[in-house]
């Protein structure tokens, strides 16, 4: 379904701000798999998702999605295959426009837009029904500006928008991180429900170990622009939060060891 080969990306190359955000990522996602992406801050998780979505063009590597080589496709073209929810609740919706108008945009993701009436009656009918399914009481407020809603409501709606037309790939980047615990629970279980119901191939970044063990069927752990662990199948199902924390500690210890060794070498030879 999604095939990543040797992805490399360096930001601000040759300057003091040089960051090697991706240093050779290879990853293959099977159709319908739900992958949780873990990793320390700055390990390249968002960069990986942005690379897949096409927010920038890679320095190196190939991306195949749903049988197409999309490496050189611009972001808006890839959007025909990809649904996205961002970390920031403000990113996924147009605040000045109504709930209904936001969905009218989502209902034409990857399709040509013409002079048809945006708020077509059949869309409104389906919308009212699906939004009522959120049990947030928003079905009576479809004409309200989406900017007037809470972060949790906006993320739930963004998720619904991203999956309104079944995407071939769903990208969730810490989409519950900016929410209060209750809203976060609501949004994550809604995500799981939609992903299962539609059998969506999904990449979900999170910092929550609880989410990582409770959801998905595979976990990859990133560090310094690489995939350093890959748990799947029975191993993923057996995994507990403590195991994940152990792995993080291990990465951190190795890091300190590396730094210690570097310091020693510097002392000896410089």
């Amino acid at each position, binding site marked *: 379904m999604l095939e990543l080969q040797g992805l490399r990306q360096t930001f601000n190359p040759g300057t003091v701000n040089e960051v090697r955000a991706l240093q050779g990522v290879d990853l293959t996602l099977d159709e319908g798999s739900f992958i949780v992406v873990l990793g320390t801050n700055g390990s390249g998780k968002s960069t990986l998702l942005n690379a897949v979505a096409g927010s920038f063009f890679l320095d190196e590597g190939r991306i195949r999605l749903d049988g197409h080589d999309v490496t050189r496709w611009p972001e*808006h073209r890839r959007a025909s295959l990809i649904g996205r929810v961002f970390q920031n609740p*403000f990113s996924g919706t147009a605040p000045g426009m109504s709930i209904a108008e936001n969905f009218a945009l989502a209902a*034409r993701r990857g399709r040509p837009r013409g*002079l048809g009436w*945006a708020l077509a009656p059949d869309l409104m009918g389906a919308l009212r029904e699906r939004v009522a399914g959120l049990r947030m009481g928003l079905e009576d407020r479809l004409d309200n500006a989406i900017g007037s809603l809470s972060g949790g409501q906006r993320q739930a709606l963004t998720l619904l928008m991203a999956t309104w037309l079944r995407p071939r790939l769903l990208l969730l980047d810490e989409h519950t991180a900016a929410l209060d615990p209750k809203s976060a629970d609501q949004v994550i279980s809604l995500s799981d429900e939609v992903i299962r119901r539609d059998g969506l191939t999904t990449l979900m970044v999170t910092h929550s170990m609880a989410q990582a063990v409770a959801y998905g069927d595979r976990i990859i752990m990133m560090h310094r622009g690489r995939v350093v662990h890959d748990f799947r199948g029975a191993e993923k199902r057996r995994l507990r939060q403590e195991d994940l924390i152990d792995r993080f500690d291990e990465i951190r210890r190795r890091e300190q060891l590396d730094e210690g060794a570097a310091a020693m070498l510097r002392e000896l030879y410089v």
Partner: protein
Amino acid sequence: MTLLLGALTLGLILSLLAMGVYVSFRIFSIPDITTDGSITLGAAVAAVLLVGGTSPILATAAGALAGAVAGALAGVIHTRFKINALLAGILVMTALYSVNLHVMGRSNVPLLQANTFATQGERLGQALFGAGPLHVLGWPVTPGDLAVLALAFLAAVAAGVTLYLFFRTDVGTAMRATGDNPQMVRALGADVDRYTILGLALSNGLVALSGALLAQYQGFADAQMGIGMIVWGLASVIIGEALTGSRSLGLALAGAVLGSVLFRLLVAVALRWGLNPNDLKLITALFVFSALVLPRLLARRRGGAPAA
């Protein structure tokens, strides 16, 4: 009365400019100076065609189309070549100054003998009401002036309604969202660059339409007529927002028309009271400046005050 009628007609004609500025400034948050060049371009193209005997409708449409092309050009420079929107507008505006002189062949084209929407309006008025002056609320007005006002009103309403309907279509909705949240629009599969180009074309098309009508109403096109027009458009939009209070699409468009008319009335009254016409642009600029700054100052005052 003639003064009032004139101010109303001018306000309605320039409401197309205000709607154009609303599109670029409020929907795309781009202060698009192309406006100053494209209003003249619309006037120049229409004037030259009218002098050559083209029908007013065709000449006006050609003027609008030329403005749309200029706007699209500014959009291309801004999006494809990654040049700051303000600078892209300045470049196109500057280039248009020469283009306009070339189109007109000199710096001023009079339309005294030409058949324009204004002369047609006058003929229509006389056909309907006869040649003598009519009495509206006890004031004498010529049927011709009244008919021209009616035509300007029709043009403003037609443009406003068309624009409103357009912004409710799939393309129009995507265009509005582009100004609101480009990241989301990209994620939903729309080409932000393309919609920005389209939006600036639409904006400048409206502006040039306004210019084409303005030239016919005042009876000439002039290379200097565009100077400061964007600020006049901004003033109208801001007055309109103060009048209608809301930022909803329909009200905002209606507000732009009302704002433009009210602005012209204010200007007419001020000139009547002896305002030096040379100070008009200075005062308009000061007005727009304070309208942009005041809300922020008030908010800071309110935010800075200790909570009661």
